[in-house]
């Protein structure tokens, strides 16, 4: 028997995986099945009902009746299952890869036990309008989780309604508006301040809430510019929406000064805690002077991202602002948990019912598996992992970490491959696509690219030293290819489900096809 294991190493280091993504060459679902096939049968209507009612459609005017059956696929059950199983295999979840490449997204491990708990009928089969006495368990979980968030942030009341981070930011902007309205200053205070390295939704959501947005650029050191803030505040300032650490992974040491200046001008401060993972148990919104904050439960609190939701953006405020929170909030009267519709000046509803309860349940279970010491461990290891990976990445030729160069970072880093680009002509985006050939994600940055040729990595606490080594080795390999064989990188992917996609149709109204029916029409195909 030969030593196969030895062949998996070169110079003592493990070889890169010879990864290949599943490639089922899967048809679009409309091409599958046959007329008459059924995927599931629905409960038949009993004769007793039929005979009494007669014609179910009686009274429904002709114009309101469907004439042509919808052209949905007609497929047998196993065919549907296999189709979607194939598609799932052509997808790369956290469960399958060293997911440090989707920076700002906090792609940590989502414990399976929490998913199992959330699938219990005592969670899934609850109607939100059931009598409170029959939902005491889920209300208790929501209430307990609020207490946890209060301690983590230092703020005093939370709503769990917002369906993700962006709508949480919107909720905060909306609460600020309600606060200024209550003081008769809503008209006058129409400017919201943010920074260029905060999440783009901070600006976008403020605008939807009706605000003008003033963006601050970093100072020469790479920190948010305090002098620019001083120049920006006025009697028109409604508030500040800011992430900290910013998407560069740099913590703003003058954050308390920022909030003080805003308060002195009569504004409120909202803390976008999308990047909270390295801060759990280290520092809080309250001490930094924030009036509002939000946490993404699908990021920091481990709940699975679900391809982009469902999610929760838990939103917290000080006692003073609690009267503006969306209704209802969950309360406890010493005997039972109940839905409290009291908040006098509530901004109203942000979401139907009370938020995505199963996500709250999973986040609660995650915290309860870790406790205070465990959350602190999460933060410390996430930050250690990040600085460890940064050291490895910066050893690769062609990459840098601009802004506050030479400083350590918190939980993520926005790198720049500008040097590599100048020397090879290979863009960061191409490196990312090539990285997919090795079974990992890689993300550049939000647009516009302030850091040139960007790449944002966030290792979280969920990956081992060996896995971080492996990710760095992939990057090093890909960067090396950019120098030795740039066309190999430019023509990537090679081991993915699909090859280079023609992007032109996506921006051409004559060609774009957002549904199969549009595609058939635009390609002149008969149905």
């Amino acid at each position: 028997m030969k030593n196969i294991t030895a062949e998996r190493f070169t110079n003592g280091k493990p070889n890169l995986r010879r990864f290949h993504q599943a490639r089922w060459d899967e048809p679009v679902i409309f091409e599958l099945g046959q007329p008459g096939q059924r995927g599931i049968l629905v409960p038949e209507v009993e004769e007793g009902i039929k005979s009494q009612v007669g014609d179910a459609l009686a009274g429904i005017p002709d114009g309101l009746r469907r004439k042509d059956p919808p052209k949905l696929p007609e497929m047998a059950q196993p065919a549907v299952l296999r189709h979607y199983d194939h598609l799932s295999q052509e997808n790369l979840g956290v469960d399958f890869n060293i997911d440090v490449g989707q920076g700002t997204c906090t792609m940590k491990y989502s414990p399976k036990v929490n998913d199992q708990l959330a699938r219990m009928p005592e969670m899934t089969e609850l109607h939100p309008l059931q009598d409170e006495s029959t939902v005491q368990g889920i209300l208790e979980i929501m209430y307990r989780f609020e207490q946890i968030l209060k301690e983590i942030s230092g703020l005093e009341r939370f709503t769990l309604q917002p369906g993700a981070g962006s709508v949480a930011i919107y909720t905060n902007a909306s609460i600020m508006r309600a606060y200024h309205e209550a003081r008769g200053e809503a008209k006058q205070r129409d400017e919201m301040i943010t920074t260029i390295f905060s999440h783009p939704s901070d600006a976008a959501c403020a605008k939807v809430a009706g605000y003008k947005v003033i963006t601050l650029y970093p100072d020469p050191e790479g920190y948010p510019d305090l002098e620019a803030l001083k120049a920006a505040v006025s009697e028109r300032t409604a508030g500040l929406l800011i992430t900290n650490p910013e998407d560069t992974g740099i913590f703003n040491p003058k954050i308390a000064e920022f909030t003080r200046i805003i308060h002195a001008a009569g504004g409120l401060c909202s803390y976008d805690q999308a990047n909270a993972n390295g801060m759990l148990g280290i520092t809080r919104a309250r001490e930094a002077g924030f009036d509002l904050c939000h946490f993404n439960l699908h990021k920091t609190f481990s709940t699975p991202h679900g391809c982009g939701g469902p999610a929760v953006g838990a939103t917290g405020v000080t006692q003073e602002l609690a009267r503006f929170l969306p209704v209802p909030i969950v309360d406890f009267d010493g005997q039972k948990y109940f839905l409290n519709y009291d908040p006098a000046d509530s901004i109203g509803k942000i979401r139907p019912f009370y938020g995505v309860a199963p996500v709250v349940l999973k986040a609660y279970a995650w915290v309860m598996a870790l406790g205070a010491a465990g959350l602190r461990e999460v933060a410390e290891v996430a930050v250690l992992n990040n600085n460890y990976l940064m050291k490895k990445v910066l050893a690769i030729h062609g990459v840098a970490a601009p802004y506050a160069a030479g400083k350590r970072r918190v939980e993520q880093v926005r790198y720049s491959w500008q040097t590599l680009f100048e020397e090879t002509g290979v863009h960061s985006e191409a490196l990312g696509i090539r990285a997919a050939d090795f079974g990992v994600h890689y993300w550049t940055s939000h647009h516009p690219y302030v850091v040139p040729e960007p790449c944002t990595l966030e290792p979280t606490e969920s990956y081992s030293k060996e896995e971080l080594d492996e990710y760095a080795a992939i990057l090093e390999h890909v960067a090396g290819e950019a120098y030795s064989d740039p066309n190999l990188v430019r023509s990537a992917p090679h081991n993915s489900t699909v090859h280079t996609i023609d992007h032109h149709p996506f921006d051409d109204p004559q060609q774009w096809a957002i549904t199969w029916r549009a595609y058939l029409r635009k390609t002149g195909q008969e149905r």
Partner: protein
Amino acid sequence: MTQKKIVYPYIPNSAPEVKAQMLRDVDASSVEAFYADVPAALRIQGQMDLPEPFLSEYALRRHVEGLLRKNTTTQQYLNFLGAGCYQHHVPAICDEINQRGEFLTAYAGEPYDDHGRFQSLFEYCSMMGELLEMDVVNVPNYDGFQATATSLRMACRITGRNRVLLAAILGRDKLSRVRDYLKPEIEIASVEHDPKTGGMNLKHLETLLKTESAAVYFENPSYLGSLETHGTEITDLAHKHGALAIVSVDPISLGVLAPPVRYGADIVCGDIQPLGMHMQFGGGQAGFIASQDDEKIVMQYPSRLFGISPTRVPGEYGFGDVAYDRTSFAKREEGNEWVGTAAALWGITAGVYLALMGPQGMKEIGEGILYRSRYAMQEIGKIKGVRSDVFSAPHFKEFVVNFDGTGRKVAELNAALLRKGIFGGKDLSREFPWLGESALVCVTEIHTQEDIDRLVSSLKEVLS
């Protein structure tokens, strides 16, 4: 204080030896080195005051299960609650697919990492497109409330006007969401309903349309279950005055009911929770917005739109973002509203649901709901002092039951039903005081004749 060092199973590098090695590798004496920028005054002193954790998975499971068992489910009790969250059968395959780690734990990868997500969501949009007979459907947004609010804002951007007209019969919560979302620049006016049918008062609509408006919005079925039978007249009036017609629908009705485009809707929206999502205490909601393939409208969608395209290999399907520059990611505050995490997994699930159901399944389920809800209306209407014909229009899935003739309060009746293991219809007395003591009763394909009969007999007992 000496504490036992815990190695956390979720945190690979929490093993002390590994941690120490990594610290050495980055020339840091402790993790404090990474927090140098956090001023001392902002540091948490000591440990946070959180409950003691359940460190073993077994203990954790026991704790959470213990809490959940305090709930009573709609499997244990007979449920007639609806009002935006509906109990339908969830096919096993729906759960099977959305539990797969490949979908459940993925997020925002490019088409080269996450082809499956792009294709399955494109297919979801395409199947919704068939149901709605529209060429453009978005990747799900948060919920039906958001879909309505966003559709209205889209109409304002498209028409350059800032006033919208909403049908009077609208859930109070949804109205609240819309009000907040349209603030501060968009004005809302309410179109009176015809008290007999529950439909829109066309005269009043015409009067309101004399002031420049961006959109006329109604729901089919309405929040109270009644169908709007004058869809064409309403949309004609809207168009005559340069306004768009926006209709919110229950997608599960569309196997039997005409898609709103057939009566002139420009934008159709709603919530896909009925299509394969468990109720989850309201956690299964997800919104859709659809329209025809008109560049003017498409460019105003704030949500992601996935498109199909060739790759460099002949015969290979590729997918990607259509008109990416619309989104707030690409344009920061110039974007239309915003794009973010919403409810993609429920979109994939609804796709699975529609593929399983097919045209025949959608027809049968629609008919089944019509039969059962009509049967329930008839039977409940037979109870002395109880009216189930508050609106004369036909209904789908839900209907108003009025108890004024019995002199009893809905709250009290529901409490009595609860003791009999039944969740009665939603109490409308605070939401719609003009309906008196009324409840909104929901009947779907999961209800058997026996279930409905049991509700009727229980009501009779409670009332006697």
